[in-house]
């Protein structure tokens, strides 16, 4: 390990200067640069609890019958009809990382359509019940399944009040390079963790939504768009009574 042939750990002159510039600028304008630092984390840095990734869904913009977010998620992560990966499972058995839910207020007749996915809770019940610590919350608030440890007991699926997790019943092939998936493991929305780690700052569903109804950002950074919108407009957490403090918030319901 003391080998000098480790290209990423050597700090080049350019990286050093870039880091120095960011530091000096951070003292002048902390908000803006903290956001940049959170987005463009170095490859060798671990996820930080100074960041909390969250999502704000504007249900007034979300259109009934539109499935752009679902299709984008399927294409990005290789699940569902597009990959035809679970031919022998019934639709209700197949993986479903994100689904559209239609709501209707009976007294007023007002209808809402919204995407429902893993809410990336601060106190996730799926993590509480996992017997192998496969279900875990990363420092930056993203709730994930470590498939290396998952034994497929499905306790987390029962514990989740949002029905956000799926179990894979069949052997899979031709998985996406960045999204390993396999038989016998539970899975769910990863908040496109590979994209966030790469500094893209958004998810496949948010990028695909032509109505701009999905916004992804750092809830702990006051200057981020999501923080500003959450501070300005009323937003709701679904099943807020459970005190799970989900990272996904809904506007307009």
């Amino acid at each position, binding site marked *: 390990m003391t*080998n000098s*042939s*480790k*290209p*990423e*750990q050597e700090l080049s002159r350019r990286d050093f200067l870039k880091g120095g510039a960011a530091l000096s600028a951070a003292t002048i304008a902390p908000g803006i640069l903290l956001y940049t630092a959170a987005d463009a*984390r170095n*490859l*060798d*840095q*671990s*996820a930080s609890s100074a960041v909390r990734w969250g999502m704000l869904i504007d249900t007034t913009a979300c259109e009934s019958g539109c499935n752009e977010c679902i299709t984008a998620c399927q294409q990005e992560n290789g699940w569902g009809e597009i990959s035809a990966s679970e031919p022998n499972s019934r639709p209700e058995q197949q993986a479903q990382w994100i689904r559209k839910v239609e709501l209707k207020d009976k007294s007023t007749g007002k209808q809402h359509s919204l995407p429902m996915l893993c809410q990336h809770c601060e106190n996730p019940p799926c993590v509480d019940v996992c017997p192998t610590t496969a279900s*875990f919350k*990363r*420092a*930056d608030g993203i709730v*994930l399944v*470590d*498939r*290396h440890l998952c034994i497929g007991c499905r306790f987390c699926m029962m514990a989740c009040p949002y029905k956000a997790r799926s179990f894979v019943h069949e*052997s*899979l092939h*031709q*998985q*996406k*390079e*960045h999204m*390993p*998936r*396999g*038989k016998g*493991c539970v899975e769910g929305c990863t908040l496109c*963790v590979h994209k966030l*780690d*790469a500094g893209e700052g958004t998810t496949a569903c948010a990028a695909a939504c032509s109505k701009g109804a999905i916004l992804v950002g750092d809830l702990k950074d006051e200057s981020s768009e999501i923080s500003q919108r959450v501070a300005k407009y009323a937003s709701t957490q679904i099943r807020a009574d459970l005190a799970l403090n989900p990272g996904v918030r809904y506007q307009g319901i």
Partner: protein
Amino acid sequence: MSQLLQQAVHGILFLFLATTLLVPGVVMGGDGPSIPPAVKGEQCVDTVPNMRRNHMEYLKQHRVETMRLGIRTKLYSLKECLNCHIEPRSYELQKSAQHPETERHFCKNCHAYAGVKPDCFECHATQPEGEAK
């Protein structure tokens, strides 16, 4: 007379040693797993004997760091192993649609020879996606 016998014994011993030790050694070298050459790159991230012995430890350490902490360095990453050692999916499709993806697979060939089943490819992509991405 005894000198002649001694020489004869030496000769026979030499022949015996030469056939039993040296010749099978050469044959064994050719009998190993058929390892496809790396698709790109000439030098592995570590010495070959070290990688042969310890690659699983490096991969396991890396997987914990990546999965749990979000550290995404490329040294010892499974994705980078595949990038260097295995032909991208697109190449394979061009050659033949029926071509089994395991036939020229660096990891699978060697593991089949050693009789150790790697668990990686139950979930992980077996081939890099290639230039498309």
